């Protein structure tokens, strides 16, 4: 708690003093600017230029629990806080959301269990101005009543919508089946009522702690040059010291070891199965789990889709490369979800047996393509670099150096046996289970 206070105090004292363009001339020398590094103000950056792209992505990623830093979780506060800053009028003028719209660009904010990102896709000539405005706005966040009201309206509507999307609702609840506490337990959706009840003081406190320069990872992709790094805003005055000068440490997850399914009342119906997987540092196994999720759950050709046939059920599965542990998340939704569950479980269990060679090669080719296809646009690439950086292993990002990088070398090295061994290690144990169902209808008055 004392550490929290120190961090916040330092952040608040610096928040009034923002200037732009005062960094050393990083890009003005003759030596090429490294693709990754840390700027003098403590901001980590990832820069991957592609001048053939017609646009660029400017993204800020932060390690921050979706439900806040306090002992009492405030579900979805990270997204609310990031949106409030984007909608609040900063001292320097136009709110970020309006600024990006004026550039013909698109602003998006995404919250994950342990991180939050703000991404603007803009035309190349607006990259420097966007970097300047975004870093100024988030490094010294201004939170206004009006900005909070706008953000609450949008976030509440978003929460209501997501609660109705079966896969989203099931995945959001799965964290609570896997963990007794911590960011992965709390989920990222929240509720409309809860979001509307968040106080401005809590939003401000979260923003001032989470959005500090030392906790930031700036990602530039697409047609963005190194000179844009000169536009990063810095705080005037004495540099931050102590905890305020460091990135947020990873939060420890507390596992839930209940054998019984977690049953929840929800707006939608569905079943979730979750397994703790390898940490990101175990790159070989993490890659194997990525492959496995794709091979099992590819929409048309995956093992599960083939097994389900024409049943009125849909199953999704993915491996999420968190720092520790990674998560293998499966959802089963639709009218026949209950009947489909054992089919899905059998398919997952079958992964402990090596796939036939030909099927394995076909599945790997499909998986490699889908992965590359998901990294086509500047925003896609920024998401990949931001994610792997915030989870602590940027060199493992699949987007690095096109398709010839550490990740894809590991993918090429996969064998049916290695994948089966990874499945044996992580998917043999019974999964955590969550079952969502709408509330039972009230019985009518008896005659």
């Amino acid at each position, binding site marked *: 708690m004392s550490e929290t206070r120190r961090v916040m105090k330092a952040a608040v004292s610096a928040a009034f003093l923002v200037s732009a363009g005062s960094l050393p001339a990083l890009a003005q020398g003759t030596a090429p600017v490294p693709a990754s590094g840390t700027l003098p103000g403590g901001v980590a950056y990832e820069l991957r230029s592609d001048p053939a792209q*017609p*646009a660029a992505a400017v993204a800020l990623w932060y390690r921050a629990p979706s439900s806040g830093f306090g002992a009492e979780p405030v579900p979805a506060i990270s997204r609310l806080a990031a949106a409030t800053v984007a909608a609040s009028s900063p001292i320097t003028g136009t709110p970020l959301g309006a600024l990006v719209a004026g550039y013909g660009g698109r602003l998006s904010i995404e919250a994950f269990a342990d991180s939050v990102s703000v991404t603007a896709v803009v035309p190349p000539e607006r990259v420097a101005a966007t970097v300047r405005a975004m870093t100024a706005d988030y490094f010294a966040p201004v939170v206004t009543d009006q900005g909070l009201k706008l953000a609450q309206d949008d976030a509440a509507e978003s929460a209501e919508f997501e609660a109705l*999307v079966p896969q989203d609702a099931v995945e959001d609840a799965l964290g609570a089946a896997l963990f007794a506490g911590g960011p992965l337990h709390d989920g990222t959706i929240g509720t409309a009522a809860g979001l509307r009840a968040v106080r401005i003081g809590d939003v401000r406190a979260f923003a001032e702690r989470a959005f500090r320069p030392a906790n930031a990872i700036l990602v530039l992709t697409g047609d963005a040059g190194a000179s844009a790094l000169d536009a990063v805003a810095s705080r005037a005055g004495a540099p931050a010291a102590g905890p305020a000068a460091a990135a947020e440490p990873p939060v420890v997850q507390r596992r839930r070891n209940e054998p019984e399914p977690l049953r929840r009342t929800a707006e939608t119906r569905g079943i979730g199965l979750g397994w703790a997987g390898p940490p990101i540092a175990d790159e070989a196994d993490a890659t194997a789990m990525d492959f496995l999720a794709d091979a099992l759950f590819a929409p048309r050709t995956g093992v599960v889709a083939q097994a389900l046939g024409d049943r009125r059920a849909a199953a999704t599965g993915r491996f999420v490369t968190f720092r520790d542990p990674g998560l293998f998340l499966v959802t089963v939704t639709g009218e026949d979800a209950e009947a489909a569950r054992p089919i899905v479980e059998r398919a997952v269990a079958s992964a402990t047996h090596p796939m036939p060679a030909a099927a394995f090669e076909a599945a790997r080719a499909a998986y490699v393509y889908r992965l590359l*296809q998901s990294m086509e646009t500047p925003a896609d690439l920024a998401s990949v670099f931001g994610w792997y950086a915030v989870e602590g292993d940027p060199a493992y990002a699949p987007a690095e150096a096109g398709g010839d990088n550490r990740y894809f070398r590991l993918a090429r090295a996969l064998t049916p046996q290695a994948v089966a061994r990874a499945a044996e290690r992580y998917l043999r144990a019974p999964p955590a289970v969550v079952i969502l169902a709408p509330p039972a209808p009230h019985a009518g008055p008896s005659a």
Partner: protein
Amino acid sequence: MTIRSVALRALAAGALLALAAPAAAAQGTTVSEGGAVRSYVRSDPAATLAGVALFVDAGLDRQDAGRNGIAALVAQTVLETPLDGVPLVDAVERAGGSIAFAVTPEHVRFYLEAPPAALPRVAALAARAFAAPAFDRSALAAARAALGRRIAGEGEDPRSVGLQMLRQAYYAGGSGMPSLGEPGALAQLSADDARAFFARWYVRGDAFVAAVGRTGAATDAAAAALGGALPAGETPGTKVTTRPYGATPRQIVAQRDVGAPYVVVGYAAPALGDPDFPAALVIRAMVESLLGPAVGTGVAPFRTAGVIYGYDAAPAQLAVWVNGGRTEPAVALASLIALMRGAAAQPIPASAVRRYVDAARGEWALETQSLDERAFAVGNAVTQGLSPDVDAAIAAALPRVTGADVARAAKRWFQRFDVALVVPRSTGQHG
């Protein structure tokens, strides 16, 4: 890895229609005449994938009145054609790529994408299906089912529903028919219909290829394979015809299972090659600025209003949609009418023009981020008899747009309109 937040997926679920796809990019497109069909090549050496789009002169305008959906059914059946027992679409996936199609008024566009090393194999599979498509009961049934799923998906988006209503009112003949057909009409189409349509229109004629991304020997080989799979033959030219907008707007109403009413307003709009096109992009930015929220938060799952510019046909159509769940539709409609009248009556101030030009330039640049979007941009330009790099010319023209240009375009194009209302079933209104 799987990086995906719920917010991102929510937006993707309601993502704007692909109908009015994109254009822009600074570098030049080269033309190759060497293969069976002409190839337009736009390279991006930093891309990891290569894409090849085959444009076949078998679009909506080739459909006659009794064969609504035949263009889509034939295209989907090609994808469902079994190769060694596996449908083409799945065989391509197992070879490490993807294949998909889109039907526009003048073409059907097949788009193949893969890492360069896999592309020749993927293209060879597609070429086999083009050479001998299976119009049997099984493949047609699979095609109808696949189209049915896509149609159902589009039917859940009130903007898509309204847009189709407006297209049907504006475009005459096959061009106004739904791009994927309708389930009832698809069920009536026979294998003979499909065979005849394929035999008549899937010929080299005016077919061409657009190659994008990491181009080179692999895309050259793919283009040659695809073009070579089509038999020689010519197709007569067609002209997309329209029904003029009247002084009194047509009002079309449909009931759907939607959460809120949507109003979609359709205008005739300048085509890609029209001198008014850049000014129309500025008007688009102006409308979005007026009807959209003044401040974006980055997390709204649904927007208040937006514009869909259907410049995939000439003449084009511009549709403005208003989400009645977030704003009062009548007020928004009145504001839109007043905006268009005001813009036509006298030039807007230069400072406002600059602001909207800035937004229009950015929006234009953002329309060609993916490889598929770039292939569309090249092919759409070529289809309309323009330079494949017309997108760059438009980007260069935008800063020169003046208030007088905006006034001229507003007066010529945006005073007459149709209105589509998509209302929830429970409201009791009738269509």
